[in-house]
Every structure is written in structure tokens, then in C-alpha cells.
């Protein structure tokens, strides 16, 4: 090879050939910033995502459910750490990212600003919220950024357990009393629309998607993924014996997809702005955990230094 290939051409060429970008590769500043933001807020979502379900660990109805829920919440912590580790390869630092989270400068998914009122919410989060996350995350396993794609592969394998335990939990409740069935239906009513919001605003309102698709850090548009999720969920709901709170939801033979009603984007924007039911308490809880743990982190450093000097 004689010609000097410019860094930018090399980057474009790597993307074109569907090869992965790796940590020390030169990347355009926009790509680096977009990836750091995307990975950081994904990590923050996993970390904050421990809270809604963690709320039920001490009150799980059986030892079996408690063990499952503990494992699931531990997985969420693990997912957060895989992702902070991926962000670190782009020059971001975990302590710094945590600081940006607890000072509200970086965001997390608005889905975690909704409360878990009954144990049925735990099941519905596994089924619908984790189901929606799987729809988003499976294509991310082919993200052009290698460390992120690899983290997503690990995460997707574990998410499958999350979704199935949730669905099984709901099936068990549906076989119970009338009151339990009502509890499940009410939880479904609460989470259905926020789950659809997880895919983001309609494509017409998402101009950034084009750049992200070109860089292959996004593989499908918001509307494509939302439709896929709706199509997957409807048969699962009827197998379970629940309905979704949408009178316009019906099969469209011509399109080969389910039609569904309009999402309330005002609610979505409002929750993002910080006015959701749990925004303040989620951040306050995370901040408290971080500050309460400071002495442990410091003591571990002091202990390590002492051992080194012996």
C-alpha cells in the first residue's frame, strides 16, 4: 500500500465493510461523543433500573421469587458495569459518569421514573419493559463500535431470562385468584404506553436517526422497532389472557402488522423534563447510595496502599 489513506477515509471504509471500530481507532469527534452519550445513558438506565424492582426484593411472595428477583437485579448492575467498561474504552471515566448522573447532567431512560405499585409490576417490567429493551438491543449487538456490540451480546443473553421470568410470574398470577388477575391487568394498563414510548418519538421527528444509521450505531428506526414490539406482544397478551389499553389496536391484513393508537408524547416529554412520578426519588436514592459508600471506597484504597508498603 503506497497511498496515504486519510484517517477519516479509513474510518468510513471500516464502517462500509461492516467491520467494527475498536478502542484505539481514530474516529470523528461526533462519533465519539455520540457513542459516549449513548453508552453512558444506557449504563445509567441499567443502574437506575435496579430501583423499581429492587423495591420488591424484601417483599417477594416466596423464596423462589426472591432468589429470581435478586439474580435479576444483580444482572442489571452487571449490565451497567459492562457498559461503563465499554464507555471507558472511549476515554470516559466511570466515577465521572456517575457524577454526571447524580448531578442530573446525563440522563437515563424515562421508563424507570414510573413506580412499581404491586408485585404484578415486577412481572410486567420483565415481560414488556425488558421485552422492549430486547427489541432495541438485539440490533445493537451489531453496533459498529466493537466494545458496545460485545457488551450488548452478553446483555441480550441475560435479558432473555429477565423476560421469561416476568412472563412466567404473570402466568402464575393469572392462574390465581380473581384479585390477582385484576392486579396483572392493572399493571399491564400502567406499563403498556410507557413501554411504547421507550422506542422514542416517531421517525418524522427524529432527524438524528439518519446520521446514526450511516455510522451503523443504529440499525432500525424508532417506528420499525416499535411496530416489531407491538407485533410480538399482542399474541403474548392473548396467551396470557390480558388486553392492552388501546381500543385502536387491531390486525391490519394489508400491512401485515397490528395498527395501534397514538402515543401521548406530551406525557413522555413531561417525564423526560423531570416531572414523572419518581424522577426525584430515583436520583436521590442513587446519590445516597454513592455518598454512603464513599468511606468503603476510601478504606479499600487505604488498605491496598498499606499492603503495598509492607
Amino acid at each position, binding site marked *: 500500500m503506497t497511498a496515504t489513506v486519510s484517517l477519516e477515509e479509513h474510518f468510513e471504509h471500516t464502517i462500509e465493510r461492516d467491520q467494527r471500530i475498536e*478502542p484505539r481507532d481514530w474516529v470523528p469527534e461526533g462519533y465519539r461523543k455520540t457513542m459516549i452519550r449513548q453508552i453512558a445513558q444506557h449504563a445509567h438506565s441499567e443502574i437506575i433500573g435496579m430501583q423499581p424492582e429492587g423495591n420488591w426484593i424484601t417483599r417477594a411472595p416466596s423464596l423462589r421469587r426472591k432468589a429470581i428477583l435478586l439474580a435479576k437485579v444483580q444482572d442489571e448492575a452487571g449490565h451497567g458495569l459492562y457498559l461503563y467498561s465499554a464507555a*471507558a474504552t472511549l476515554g470516559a471515566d466511570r466515577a465521572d459518569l456517575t457524577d*454526571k448522573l447524580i448531578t442530573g447532567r446525563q440522563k437515563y431512560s424515562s421508563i424507570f421514573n414510573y413506580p412499581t405499585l404491586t408485585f404484578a409490576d415486577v412481572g410486567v417490567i420483565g415481560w414488556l419493559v425488558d421485552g*422492549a429493551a430486547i427489541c*432495541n438491543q438485539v440490533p445493537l449487538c451489531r453496533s459498529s463500535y466493537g466494545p458496545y456490540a460485545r457488551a450488548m451480546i452478553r446483555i441480550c443473553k441475560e435479558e432473555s431470562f429477565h423476560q421469561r421470568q416476568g412472563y412466567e410470574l404473570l402466568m402464575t398470577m393469572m392462574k390465581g385468584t380473581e384479585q390477582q388477575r385484576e392486579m396483572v391487568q392493572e399493571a399491564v394498563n400502567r406499563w403498556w404506553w410507557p413501554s411504547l414510548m421507550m*422506542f422514542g418519538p416517531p421517525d418524522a*421527528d427524529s432527524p*438524528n436517526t439518519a446520521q446514526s444509521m450511516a455510522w451503523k450505531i443504529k440499525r432500525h428506526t424508532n417506528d420499525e422497532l416499535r411496530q416489531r414490539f407491538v407485533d410480538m406482544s399482542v399474541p403474548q397478551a392473548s396467551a396470557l389472557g390480558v388486553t392492552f389499553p388501546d381500543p385502536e389496536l387491531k390486525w391490519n391484513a394489508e400491512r401485515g402488522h397490528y395498527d395501534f393508537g397514538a402515543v401521548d408524547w406530551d406525557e413522555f416529554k413531561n417525564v423526560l423534563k423531570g416531572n414523572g412520578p419518581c424522577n426525584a426519588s430515583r436520583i436521590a436514592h442513587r446519590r445516597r447510595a454513592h455518598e454512603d459508600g464513599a468511606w468503603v471506597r476510601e478504606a479499600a484504597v487505604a488498605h491496598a496502599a498499606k499492603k503495598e508498603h509492607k
Partner: protein
Amino acid sequence: MSELTSEGGHGAVPLEGVPAAPGTVKHDWPLYEVFVRGKRGLNHVHVGSLHAADDQMALHHARDLYTRRNEGVSIWVVRAADITASSPDEKDPFFAPSGDKVYRHPTFYDIPEDVPHI
């Protein structure tokens, strides 16, 4: 709402106005890289990184983080600062010595098809 996309797994989060540049908060625990042997007969493979105060804690964290489902029979941890790496961007000069030695690969040699087991 133009700044929102569904990137980031768990849903749409604003991208615009969100800082991505490194801040001033410094990590108090060093970064370790983690390598796991999946099962006997395989090499250790890099799986990711983590922070720990010392080597022993790094091993424990690696077990908890990367082998929750029997993904490994052996773990190596090494401080990231102690790794010397070639950079993928230096691929051409650094890997050039092997690039033109096609005779190191079995497919370089034409063997008649009727010669068995070769």
C-alpha cells in the same frame, strides 16, 4: 423532541445538551482488564474491564461481574496501565512483517486432489 432517539437500549433519552467530555472527577480505584478461560482447552479471552482497589478485589469483582453463569473456569486480571498494546491504527507498519508471508498458510500450497489426508 428532535434530539431523541431510541438508542441506548432501555429507551429514548435526550442526546443534545448532554455533556460527553471527560470531567474533573478522578477515579480512586485503578482500572483492571479481565481475561476469562471459558472452559478447559480454551485460551483466556479478554471480556472487559472493572475498577478495584487491589489485585485480590479485582479477581473477586471479575468473578461476580463476568462469570455469574459459569462462563469461566479461570480468571486473569491485570492493571490496564501495565498492558503494552499495538494500536489497531498502526496495523500496517506493525503487522506488515506477516502480511506478505503468504507461504505461512496451508492454502499457499497446491496439492493434487487425489493425495489423501493432507
